[in-house]
């Protein structure tokens, strides 16, 4: 299969950076699963997934260093447009929202399919993702998207350097750290350790409204409606239940033997 993100050779170091962002329910307090759809209830005000802001910030820094354009790409319901505004206020140039009724209930496959299609259309030099999703719904999207785009992937990046033809990321692993390099175009997922996202300036907030925001339907991307959404999903939520209870609390006062009792319990549960 021909590579899909090959663009014209880069003459300058100006880059087109696409940042994949996601709207997540904001009410941390009152998240609930809708008993009818068995999915996270996404009504109630929503905001950008917090680590996506790290990705946006990184994109803005790259643009500030070497010129270029930052495009936000998102897949979600129509009102996702509201939360894109914050990222536009930070300095992103424009936004593309893939939104379609058929898309509700999309799983990793459907979401990655839609995002990959939108990204191909944009043909960016670099695709950035935020590493973690606070609603637990997009855990490893970037790896699936990279596979569909047929481009190299670097994830868990805590420090990133970019030049006109390649990207190098330093990532923290369970054993230490790795430095990985890849030629552009590439897909990079950044961790929240990479930077501190900026606050938008007032001018930025005011200007966000006028920045181009494009909404695409599945048809615009040449995707069949059953390739996403519930119809295109290969996973299902069967039922909800209470978590296994912790069991009763064993509570006692220290009569001098508390430490021994604690150790006994720890050993009994094979935690040492």
């Amino acid at each position: 299969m021909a590579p899909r993100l090959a663009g014209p050779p880069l003459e300058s170091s100006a880059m087109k950076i696409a940042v994949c962002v996601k709207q997540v329910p904001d009410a941390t307090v009152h998240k609930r699963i809708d008993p009818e759809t068995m999915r996270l209830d996404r009504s109630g005000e929503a905001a950008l997934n917090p680590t996506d802001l790290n990705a946006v910030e990184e994109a803005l820094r790259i643009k500030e260093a070497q010129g270029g354009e930052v495009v936000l790409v998102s897949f979600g319901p129509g009102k996702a447009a509201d939360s894109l505004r914050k990222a536009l206020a930070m300095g992103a140039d424009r936004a593309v929202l893939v939104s379609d009724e058929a898309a509700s209930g999309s799983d990793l496959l459907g979401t990655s399919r839609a995002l990959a299609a939108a990204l191909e259309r944009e043909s960016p030099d670099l695709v950035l993702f935020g590493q973690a999703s606070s609603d637990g719904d997009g855990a490893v999207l970037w790896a699936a998207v990279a596979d569909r785009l047929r481009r190299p992937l670097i994830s868990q990046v805590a420090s990133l350097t970019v030049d006109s033809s390649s990207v190098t990321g330093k990532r923290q692993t369970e054993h230490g750290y790795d430095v990985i390099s890849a030629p552009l175009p590439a897909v990079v997922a950044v961790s929240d350790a990479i930077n501190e996202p900026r606050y938008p300036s007032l001018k930025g907030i005011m200007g966000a409204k006028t920045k181009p925001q494009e909404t695409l339907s599945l048809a615009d991307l040449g995707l069949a409606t059953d390739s996403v959404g519930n119809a295109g999903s290969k996973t299902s939520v069967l039922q909800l239940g209470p978590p296994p209870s912790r069991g009763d609390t064993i509570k006692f006062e220290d009569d001098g033997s508390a430490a021994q009792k604690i150790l006994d319990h720890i050993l009994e549960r094979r935690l040492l």
Partner: protein
Amino acid sequence: MRLLVYLEHHEGELEKGSLGVLSKATALGAAVGVVLGPGAIELAVRAGSYGATKAYACEDELLAAPLPQPRVDALATLVEQTGADAVLFAASILASDVAAGLAARLDAGLNWDLTDLVLVDGELVGKRPALGDTVLVDVGWKGSPGIGLVRSGAFDPVESGGSAEFESFDFTTEDFSALATLVEQTQEESSGPSIEEADVIVAGGRGLGSPEAFSLLEELAAALGGAVAATRAVVDAGWYPYSTQVGQTGKNVAPKLYIACGISGAIQHKVGMQGSGTIVAINKDPNAPIFDFCDIGVVGDLHQIVPKLTELVRSNRA
């Protein structure tokens, strides 16, 4: 049911998490292990003692670096050649990327953060916590294979002492899989794990009384091979660094063992650690809210109990 289990390894040892998933798979059906990268052949042979009926290995150059995309190629080839009803991974930074890439490659459903796997009417069903560990969701797969990412440490390895039929295999690689290259790799001799990775966390709150008391926690953590964490109140007071703060405005942790010392258990802290396996609380105040959600609650003086516990742990280890 034929389950293919990805066995991750490090420095000549198969990872405990992967072996746990393999043991679980054995209980569900015919478990087949696959090991990739340098030293894979020798390691694959060991898979039998944890229940694998067969083990595949590949030591191709392309798998030398701990990068996900060549592994997707290898597993995709293997699944196409040998078939599988499910492909299971123990979650790790590498495994998560491999699992998701494989899902896209095979157009297979992926369920992650699984804490349990069961068979219902011959179909595989996974269980995963959601909404900050406050509900447990049953999830299934449509089509075959189904891919599962199991939460780190969810299953314990069980040695059954069997042996596995071993087979080496080759795979076809995609043109983009080797574009990412490992430039440098550093193993850190860390002074203990970070709170995000630690299996054991010893945490301190206002009940410590003074910043000096943190040294008691550090000793206990060192004896247990764990990390030290702190509540917002003591971080605010400057007693311990913000990077160790657990809670709503700090980090979320879910270690196997969480020992909360002098912590009242206000909800702002609870939401950062309620997913922990076993919670031990030591507090002078018998009415502290933490006693409502811990597993072992001790009403007493942590300044007495913690050093004693440290001593007992050390002599137990010796």
